């Protein structure tokens, strides 16, 4: 499947939700998605464009812009195109709709993003810490203004 056609189809179907769509190479494309529509766009990608494989969900902290980003890497078992979808969220109240109902394996990725960045995924079936201990909840260690690294992060080992 041609990467340009994918981008055309995506921007044609969601003219308001998709912005800054660009083709990086023959097998990579990226776009920003409106945070309210992220789940809907994922559903469309899965149903209509063969993007049936979620590579990962991760967070990025852009502290200078005062924004957090949720980044979805969506790929396919049939064609080699990987689409990078990004949703920008305000840093003081980051909330986005969960995509677990579309991609089953988003479950752990969203739990991890939640505990490391404090991004709240609405309608997630089981949003609780995965790799961190419960008492570190609320410290959001992968945010850029986290002060505990590397001196206090090992406190649970002592």
């Amino acid at each position, binding site marked *: 499947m041609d990467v340009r056609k994918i981008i055309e189809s995506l921007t044609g179907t969601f003219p308001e939700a998709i912005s800054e769509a660009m083709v990086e190479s023959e097998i990579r494309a990226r776009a920003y998605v409106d945070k309210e529509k992220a789940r809907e766009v994922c559903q469309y990608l899965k149903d209509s464009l063969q993007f049936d494989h979620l*590579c990962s969900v*991760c967070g*990025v902290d852009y502290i200078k812009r005062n924004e957090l980003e949720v980044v979805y*890497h969506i790929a396919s078992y049939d064609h080699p195109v990987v689409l*990078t979808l990004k949703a920008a969220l305000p840093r003081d109240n980051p909330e986005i709709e969960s995509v677990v109902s579309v991609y*089953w394996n988003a*479950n752990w990725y969203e739990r991890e993003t939640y505990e490391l960045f404090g991004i709240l995924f609405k309608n997630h079936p089981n949003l609780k810490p995965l790799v961190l201990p419960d008492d570190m909840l609320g410290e959001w260690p992968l945010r850029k203004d986290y002060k505990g*690294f*590397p001196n206090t*992060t090992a406190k649970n080992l002592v």
Partner: protein
Amino acid sequence: MEEKLEPNEMIIHLGPQHPMQPGPFRLNLRLRGETVLGAEIELGFIHKGIEKILENKTYLQGITIVDRICYLVALVNEECFVGCTEKLLGIEPPARAKYIRVILEELTRIQSHLLGIGEFGEFIGFVSMFMYTIREREEILSLIDMVTGARVTHSYLKFGGVRDDLPAGFKEKAIPTLNKLKKAVDDFDQMFHTDRIYRERTVGVGVLTADVAKSLGVSGPVLRATGVPFDIRKNEPYLVYEDLDFKVCTETAGDCFARVQVRLNEIRESIYILEQCLDQIPNGPLFPENTPYGRRTPVMRVPAGEVFHRVEDPRGEMGMYMISDGSDKPYRLKVRGPYYPTLQALPPLIIGTTVADVAAISGSMDGCTSEADR
């Protein structure tokens, strides 16, 4: 697991330390008699915070850190990290360096699969299997050791090339070792096909169908055992895999037996790839010419940008998402390991089976908890 238990139901915790596990994670099983009614996994016992550490190390130091994501496939982790950085820098290694990388990564694949098969045998009570495979694995590790100088963590790849050339006499030592391994793999194959107890423990156990496997998001031998020919080396060729002749090994049964069979066949394909590489490897420099990148690259800055690079790990699809802000440290690095989604798919797979099969199914996934936790 908080819900109230019915009479004659119970919860047992497997782990975090348990002989059937490839690393520390806790598996909470809700049982009625011997049947598994519910399962839940708790992770985080060896969470190392590698993504945070990498944000605070320079790119060159990062090569050493990514080795530790999974100690079994250190060279593949390096390939992914170095490949990301090379794409941002806009450089490409010369042909000889690419061939050396393929040789080492295929050796890594062989030793990882050998350990995976051996551990699986151990989990289902076939302890001699571990002895058989670890003996062959040692020979492969010696080959890797000959080139990189280390058995487990190598720090061998550099941006734009590799640290050292192949030592003199490498080919002469590699060919007999690979020929010996071929015979051993044939022996294992025959053993698996004729051993009645082994077949009863594995055939039809933990069956995944292609549709379910895709919806669970797994990759690697677990997915290929269901008949889906998904291999990053073919789908999205990197290094010199385009020029090499190999096939993607698939099985159709999707059970534990098929998963081990896929690994055995992949060892054979890797040997075939290695033979081609050793024949075809060209002479030439190890680093791209007319660039400042070499064996002793000093502290360097990487142009701002972002890239998502995928390679084929022995366990499936390994990806890294690297964002650079133009400084000498990565702004963000997300590691997308292959075992993380596979481990996530374990609970739905073991519900409805018996406790004895939990070890077989979990073992046939060939896990590395170190990489799931990162």
